[in-house]
């Protein structure tokens, strides 16, 4: 008993104390070693991934690679079209998904009183977030490319991605709406404000951080997505002139960064440019994670 008392008093220092039977000692040490081993493995994996991608990709990274398009005539090898297409998809998707997502979150937290309806909407959001992207690609192809006649286009891909990212925006907005103190709402309503006025002036400004976090997470998913963009958005790598006309805006197709990477690596067996695109994607992922963290921290401080 005296030894167990020691472990109780100072568990951290004496976790394999002197009084344990050989079996318990082995269990303790064995599992502790395994835990460290697995954590080490995870870290080693990440370090290897990053190190290997940088090692293979960095030599090809240059200003020219980022700012030109691939051209046999000029002998340039660049990914500017992919960067432009990625930007287009991110912006158009957010323009569609953001109002819908924020609106849905406001409805769920501020208006909805019918429990069954709330449950239905929440079930739908969970379902949407569980559907894999290849199924979104199928539905996007059927619904937007065929039924709506958009064909292979970045607009059709953006519409599909808006469906896909709706749950993320709804969830983060909802969480942040819940942090706005109930008293603020009651105060505004008590002073005679209408509900919409209250939402516009009190609730939404108070939850802007959550909305921004939702956007950042969505951007991360959009940048990393590939199946939808490949099968609905197309895979050309020539520069698009989106703003030349409405038709160009609606019907341009092309590869984003992830699709460009896939085309380089799998279709054309050009591993070096593929790794350089991966370096760009890695940097973007890092920045997006960092931004989400900074905004999240601000949210918690409030």
């Amino acid at each position, binding site marked *: 008993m005296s030894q*167990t008392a020691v472990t109780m008093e100072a568990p951290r220092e004496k976790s394999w104390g002197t009084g344990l039977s050989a079996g*318990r000692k082995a269990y303790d040490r064995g599992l502790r070693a395994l835990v460290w*081993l*697995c954590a080490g493995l995870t870290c080693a994996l990440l370090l290897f991934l990053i190190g290997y991608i940088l090692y293979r990709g960095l030599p090809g990274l240059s200003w020219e690679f980022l700012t030109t398009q691939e051209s046999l005539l000029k002998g340039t090898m660049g990914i500017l079209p992919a960067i432009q297409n990625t930007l287009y998809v991110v912006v158009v998707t957010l323009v569609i998904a953001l109002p819908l997502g924020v609106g849905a979150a406001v409805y769920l937290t501020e208006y909805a009183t019918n429990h069954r309806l709330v449950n239905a909407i929440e079930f*739908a959001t969970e*379902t949407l977030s569980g559907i894999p992207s290849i199924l979104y690609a199928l539905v996007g192809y059927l619904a937007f490319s065929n039924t709506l006649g958009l064909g292979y286009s970045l607009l059709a891909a953006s519409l599909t991605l808006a469906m896909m990212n709706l749950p993320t925006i709804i969830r983060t907005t909802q969480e942040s709406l819940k942090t706005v103190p109930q008293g603020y709402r009651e105060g505004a309503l008590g002073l005679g404000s209408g509900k919409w006025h209250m939402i516009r002036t009190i609730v939404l400004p108070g939850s802007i951080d959550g909305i921004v976090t939702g956007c950042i997470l969505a951007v991360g998913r959009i940048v990393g997505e590939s199946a939808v963009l490949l099968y609905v958005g197309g895979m050309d790598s020539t520069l698009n002139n989106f703003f030349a006309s409405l038709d160009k805006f609606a019907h341009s197709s092309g590869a984003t960064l*992830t699709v460009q990477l*896939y085309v380089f690596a799998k279709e054309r067996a050009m591993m070096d440019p*593929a790794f350089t695109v991966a370096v760009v994607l*890695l940097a973007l992922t890092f920045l997006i994670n960092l931004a989400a963290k900074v905004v999240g921290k601000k949210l918690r401080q409030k």
Partner: protein
Amino acid sequence: MKRTQKINPLEAGMHGLFFLCGFVAVAFVLVITVYLVISGLPAIREVGLVDFLFGTTWDSDNKTNPQYGILPFILTSIYGTAGAIIIGVPIGFLTAVFLAKVAPPKVASAIRPAVDLLAGIPSVVYGMVGMAVLLPAIREAFNLRAGDTLLAAILVLAVMILPSIISVSETALRAVPREYEEASLALGATEIETYFRVTAPAAKSGIAAAVVLGVGRAIGEAMAIMMVAGNAPNMPGLFKSVKFLTTAVASEMSYAADGSLHKMALFSIGLVLFIFIMMINVGLNVILKREKE
């Protein structure tokens, strides 16, 4: 929510607008379901449900006598997912124990963003690194003609599900009341015994949720494994080139002719995958609901 003031048209309009936004998510799910069912059924009807689900040959390129049996894809998806879970869950769970309990706080807070980064890396990047590193390694190690095998896909999937398993199980482990651990320590159990025999069982529904989430991720992944699995419609074998449900759709979508039975059959595969995913989602919901109670 009784309103005493008279109804203002702007207020009513905004209420309606917000309701519509809320309803959009439901509408999307309905649209997805309807499209997948309507486009997925014709080929199943033509081929026959039993022949479609349990047929062992998929020979869509055969002009005279094409065959559309998807059993190889179903089994490959199941084997591949199981393999990824068998490798990914123990490593992920033990890493979560490390982050939540064993690691010094400073070390844990350095590793956590790294795990987030792992989660954010696009799937094609995993596929590409798999192509560049894993395939030659597997070819050399097992003396194969090509490294594009089920084994390569399993390893890539295991890495890809790792971050979600780590973060969900870590959250579950942290949610266990401190008193449980204190009681166990006071009774003379060591820290490690406490984590594995008290904390982990108490967090079991959260850990189960992590596993189910991992299953969902693994069964739905397409692009990364398309780059390493070889994409031949073989019955699964660890060292064979295989096609998953997802990669069958992904690899043939671009060349199947519009309106052909071939394309219809791809939509049917999509429907089968959708049913799998819905079952997993329902399972996940049940587990999460039980946890809340």
